[in-house]
């Protein structure tokens, strides 16, 4: 456990030295600043627009950040041959994976928390009513971010970084689709498409921005259930990633 902790801290420091991470963070902050600068034009629903677009910006920022953070870690470790001495003695492959994952997940959730605080500050400064389930919406965005990170890690062990990004984005898009829309992509093979949809995650479970923006209460039981669902899927993706890493010949 101590090995994972130290390696996660090392990963954290190394990620903060990368320009890509700061680039994504600044772009998302700029998007939030853009949302803050849009006037309400005296309309009563201005707060809804700010909450809705703000949470959407955070979600897209989280997807891009996950790809920027994790897609290049293992390929770079392998290319620079850092992975070989680490895996040869001090760390097992499982500790390597979990250490790298924990470090990137800390950065990912940290940025989502900062963006969320920025959105809350914008709502407060503009004098809009604060949605009661804002914390729940941000929590589920954090869980979704951790899940996306696990997906990127899984792809990074058997694809190159340029292929990792489109695969993750494709999974992100397909996982938002309803069963009806998904089977509609190939109406001739409905059974096969149903099986595929059953295997894909239901990422719409993490979305409560619509009720939050429109002032509907979301049950705390649902928020807990959706968070558990996301964590279980994250654990499954990490298990898959670990299985791929253990079976790889790194020589």
């Amino acid at each position: 456990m101590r090995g994972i902790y130290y390696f996660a801290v090392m990963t954290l420091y190394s990620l903060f030295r990368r320009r890509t991470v700061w680039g994504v963070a600044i772009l998302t902050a700029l998007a939030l600043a853009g949302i803050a600068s849009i006037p309400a034009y005296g309309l009563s629903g201005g707060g809804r627009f700010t909450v809705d677009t703000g949470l959407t910006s955070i979600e897209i920022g989280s997807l891009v950040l996950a790809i920027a953070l994790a897609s290049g870690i293992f390929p770079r470790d392998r290319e620079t041959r850092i992975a070989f001495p680490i895996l040869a003695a001090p760390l097992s492959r499982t500790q390597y994976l979990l250490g790298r994952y924990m470090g990137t997940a800390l950065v990912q959730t940290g940025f989502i928390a900062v963006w969320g605080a920025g959105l809350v500050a914008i709502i407060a400064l503009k004098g809009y009513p604060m949605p009661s389930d804002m914390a729940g919406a941000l929590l589920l965005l954090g869980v979704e971010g951790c899940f996306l990170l696990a997906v990127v890690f899984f792809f990074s062990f058997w694809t190159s970084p340029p292929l990792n990004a489109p695969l993750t984005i494709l999974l992100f898009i397909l996982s938002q689709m309803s069963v009806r829309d998904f089977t509609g992509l190939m109406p001739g093979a409905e059974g096969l498409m149903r099986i595929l949809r059953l295997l894909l995650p239901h990422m719409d479970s993490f979305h409560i921005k619509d009720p939050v923006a429109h002032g509907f209460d979301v049950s705390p039981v649902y928020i807990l259930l959706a968070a558990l669902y996301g964590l279980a899927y994250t654990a499954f993706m990490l298990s898959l990633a670990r299985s791929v890493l253990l079976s790889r010949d790194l020589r």
Partner: protein
Amino acid sequence: MTKTWFVFILAAAAAASVSCARKADFDIAEIAPAEHLGEADIHGHSGEEAHGHDHGAAGETETGMHIHPAGSRNHGTQWFFNQPWAAPFVWGKMLRDTLVLAALSVTLAVSSSRRRSRRR
């Protein structure tokens, strides 16, 4: 390696047979009970269709448009209420998937560790 993939193929086949039962997945539009669909079901048309008929409780304006009470379920707000947070009847399926995923994670972790130790 082969054994693990065999287990996964078996699991996929099991998932396939369950999925053939059609209602295994949680598409709210497919599995929603009539009371969840509310007014949308009574109308029996989608939001894109023309509105040239009487809507009963919905108020008609001079231009022929009709207005529903704010926050109510109707054909225009179906997309809003057909989301998991508003459909408690799919929460059980979410819990089922959570448990299945947790069990699969543990199985995969144990099987890949065993395979690795056997290879050494």
